[in-house]
């Protein structure tokens, strides 16, 4: 992936900035507005999870976002060095225990991306792919 690397301090105040930077890069790559909205939410979810993972273990190292166009996709990788987690399996919403807040982020990411891998390696690496709407600015094939 030829792209940009962004180091974000593990403070939730920076989640909005991460959203803004990644969506600006995607827009410049020709992603259409509808897909930008999906990307914005997925980046917010994964960045939030990564920052909270660092906070849980008092880690002051930054969360790293790498993003850019690759062939006909826009890819975003978000790496934390937290304790890692096992992504929950998708649940039927009618079976879900709504007594607990939280835990919806992974479901949202799966629903909004064209592909996602959760890799446990020195923390958690979330690799998200968005395949729609690239190319209208002349970057990469349509």
């Amino acid at each position, binding site marked *: 992936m030829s792209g940009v690397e962004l180091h974000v301090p593990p403070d*939730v*105040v920076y*989640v*909005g900035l991460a*959203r803004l930077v990644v969506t600006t890069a995607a827009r410049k790559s020709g992603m259409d507005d*509808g897909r930008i*909205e*999906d990307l*914005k*939410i997925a980046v*917010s*979810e994964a960045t*939030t999870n990564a*920052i*909270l993972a660092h906070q849980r273990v008092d880690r002051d190292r930054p969360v790293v976002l790498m993003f850019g166009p690759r062939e006909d996709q826009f890819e975003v990788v978000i790496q934390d060095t937290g304790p890692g987690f096992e992504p929950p399996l998708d649940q*039927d*919403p*009618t079976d*879900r225990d*709504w*007594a607990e*807040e*939280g*835990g*919806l*982020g992974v*479901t*949202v990411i799966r*629903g*909004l991306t064209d592909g996602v891998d959760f890799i446990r390696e020195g923390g958690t690496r979330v690799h998200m792919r968005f395949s729609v709407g690239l190319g209208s600015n002349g970057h990469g094939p349509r």
Partner: protein
Amino acid sequence: MELSLHHRTEGDHTILDVGGEVDVYTAPKLRERLVELVGEGHYNLVVDMTKVEFLDSTGLGVLVGGLKRVRAHEGSLALVCNQERILKIFRITGLTKVFPIYDTLDEALQGQS
């Protein structure tokens, strides 16, 4: 954009207007407001999200928490939302089956009466 919160009472309902961005940074303010309202006896809430620019699962979680609180008092929590980008994550998470969601405030007030 920051979060804006304003509430007013109309008949038996308390309408909470939410505007701006609801994410992990701003959601605690929404949670606090919902807790305050329920604590003050506002058990029939309509959360108007017409002016919400961004909402992620942290915001969804806070709304689920609000619903739990009003249900503990046999109350209700309805949502007003006509923005596809926001409705989409309610559908993905199955929360369209949990919350009554209306296109307009008038419909929400009629539907909840």
